């Protein structure tokens, strides 16, 4: 199986989908990321990542119930798939292993 690489923003979206668990849809994700990271996030960027992740099989989705505050429209709710979890784990593992390989000396600065 070819490894699917995901970008930094996509990883963030994937993580947030996991965090929100059963209520992960675009607007909620946008708000969550903005709150947690403190950066302005646009909903269309989140849409783009969500659909891409779904295409890569890392997310699956279902339609929710119609809501009046959405003009009677349903929302698409996302869940992480096992592939998604694996990608996430691998990505985090890779980071951790790389982080652990950094020699202590690299963090020794001279304060003169």
């Amino acid at each position, binding site marked *: 199986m070819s490894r699917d690489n995901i970008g930094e923003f996509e990883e963030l979206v994937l993580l947030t989908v996991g965090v929100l668990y059963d209520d992960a*849809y*675009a*607007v909620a994700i946008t708000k969550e990321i903005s709150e947690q990271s403190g950066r302005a996030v*646009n*909903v*269309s960027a989140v*849409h*783009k990542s969500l*659909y*891409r992740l779904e295409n890569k099989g890392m997310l699956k989705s279902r*339609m929710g119930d119609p*809501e009046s*505050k*959405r*003009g009677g*429209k*349903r*929302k*698409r709710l996302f869940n992480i798939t096992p592939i998604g979890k694996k990608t996430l784990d691998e990505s985090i593992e890779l980071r951790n292993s790389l982080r652990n390989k950094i020699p202590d000396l690299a963090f020794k600065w001279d304060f003169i």
Partner: protein
Amino acid sequence: MEQKPPKAAQRFFKLYCKKNRYEELEGDLQELFYDNLEHYGPNKAKWLYVWDVLRCFQPYAWKNTQNNSTIIMFNNYYKTSYRSLMKNPLSSFINLFGLSMAIGICVLVYGFGKWYKTIDQHHTNKKVVFLSTFVANRDGADQKFGMAPAPLGEAIQSDFDQIKRVCRLEDKSVVVKFEDNVFHEQVRLVDPSFLDMFTFPLVIGNPGSLRDPNSIILSQEMAIKYFGHENPMGEEVLIKFDEKEGKAFKVTGVVEKFPDASAIEFDCLINFENIKLARPELNLNDWAQFIKATLIEVNDPKEVLAIKEGMDKYMDFQNKADKDWAISAFDFESIETLYENAGQIRNHITYGGYESNHKSTIILSIIACFMLALACFNYINIAIVTAAKRLKEIAVRKAIGANKQLVVVQFLTENMLVTSIALLIGFLLGSQVFIPGFEQLNHFKMGFNILDPNLFLFLGAVLLFTGLASGLYPAFYISRFHIVSIFKGQIRFGKNNMITKVILGFQLVLSCITIVCAVMFTLNSNYLINRSWGYQPNGALYIKVHNQHAYEQMKAAMSSNPNVGSIAGSVQHIGKNHGNAIVKKGTKVYEVNEIKANAAYKEVLDLKLMEGRFFIENSTADRNSIVVNRKFVENTKVGNPIGAVYKIDSMDYQIVGVVEDFHMYSFFSNIEPTIFRLAQDHEVLHLSLKVTGGKEMEVYRNLQTQWATLYPEIPFQGGHQDGVWGNYFEEIGNHAVFWNVIAMIAVVLAGLGLYGLITLNVSGRVKEFSIRKLLGAKSSNLANNIVRQYVVLFVLALGVGGPLSYFLIDFFFNSVYTYHVPMSLYSVLFAVLLLVVVLVATVLSQVRKTNKSNVVEGLRTE
């Protein structure tokens, strides 16, 4: 009130958004909108919504373009259009040619209209600079004049606070000399404010330098004439106001080349203070004397009304000073509208011509409409007839689900394709061929700019109009057919379509009119060349002399020449200038043209005497005699002219002779009542002489050399009497050239249309003709068969077109020319014949083709 997201943005979103993602995406956007509504209020929320919609315009939300039927459909339309264009190269050519010609003429009309509408509009202060004008009674009617009483400028400047600047202006013909260059020029005397009021940027120098009465600012043209491409700054030129008064001026500036669209131009500017030299007799405090113009600048155009009301006291001054020439009202004309209204103002500072330009624009627009109509008619006819060959295509389209609208759209697309190509060609044709040609023919530059944004708006409008005008009818006509009847072969048309015939009829009428127009213009230019002037200009030469001494010296020098007959002196000269005189009889007052000449003048110009006698040389009695022209007699209704007494300047004059009417200037101007008075020798300003034995050129050269030896300082001004009209004949000839070109295009367009129509008609009936041939029809028979369809149409169209063109052109000539050739029936006959020849030639060529073609091939088609 409940707030909702903006409708337009919602609609746009729905337009581009994929169906299966629309619900969730739109839901998200709306949720955000209501969120923002709480946080930021309705306005910002709406803006944010619009912004989000725009940001979502990304591939993930787009409808799938690969399956987009609209795009596929238009691709297909384009392909079929292209194929059908290539399939019928002849009709495509006819359509393209006609439309491009018409659009080219439209571009010309635009360029010309724009040119004359922008004349003098480049002056930044055009709205606040006004020319003072006045109304005075002359010839029994109130007329407006652009001059001003000499003291007016100074008076209003001190009396009105609203007036920011005043500029007095006077023109004077002078001799300008720099080293070996001696020329006659018009020098313009102005107050230094002139360059502040008008936008005449300097290439070099300082506009303030005009304050120095010794400096001169040149036009670029004049700077090049005297100094070539060397820097003229600081050079001194000598200006001779008359033989005695001369003054050196230092060049302190050169004005940039005047824009193409300008009517206020000058050779050079000097300070108004030099008026003492230019017009020594002028008293700047005398309200009875006038200068060429006085201009004012105000802060706000509305203030002019107040100033106008305060002008009454100047009227009193003027009326007291000059009762004969009493001003009845003062007025002001802004520079913005001066050119447009110059036709109603006498003696103003711009070049006139607004009316004739306006007329030309109308005529050109009519021509453009004619051409567009001809081209559109061609298109409609050809489209309808070709549709016969494309019936199956239409039926198939309809069978697979195209509705009527879609077929209309298809045919309009096709037509837009043709029109767009024609637009491109027409634009090139107009800007590269028609406009330069027109400019050359009429000796002017219209400053056409291809990058003018309004031009593109105009072309867009032309495209839309032409596209719809030519395409709409065929599109609707073709889309109307039912599938079943097409497949059954029940639809027959192209042969007897009423609309096609009516349109062809129109084309014939239009081309008939243009042909008659061209013929008449050609006849007219010949007629005018041969028209009698009322005197004999051939063999007469004239020369301008500056005083009596010069006159006598030249006379003495020339009389020894054996080829010279009589020599005459005159103050004014026919064809060059004339004076005015107020003639009174009892209570009646007439303003007439006046020429002061001595006795030999009649001999030299061969004026035809009707009654009485011309002046007798050196007769003191004749000092109180006048000779009048026939028009004078007619106008004054004097029963027995000889011996009648008139008052001029409170002196009595007796008519001693009547001469035949003659043309003072070109045939564009009317013959006016004219009187001759005996010129005193000391007044003489023109010398004219009769050359005998056809030696004009020789005598003319002799005249020039004599002048050059006597007066090397003064430029020679003279010429052949038959040359005084300058480019008048050329202009008349140009009219004929222009109309011939137009008529040629019209005939070609109508001819091509006819040709296309008949060709298509014949090719649609190949089978029929083959059967006829098989059964023994002769070619005359076939020709008969083809022609028969058009005979009635031709007779009707030409029956209408002939008389119509006769009356239209007659009307047209009467409004353009003062004197013109009488309408002739031959021109109409010629037009009719020409069109008939085109028809016959077309039919014959088709008959030949049918004759040559193989019967079997013909039977096999379809």
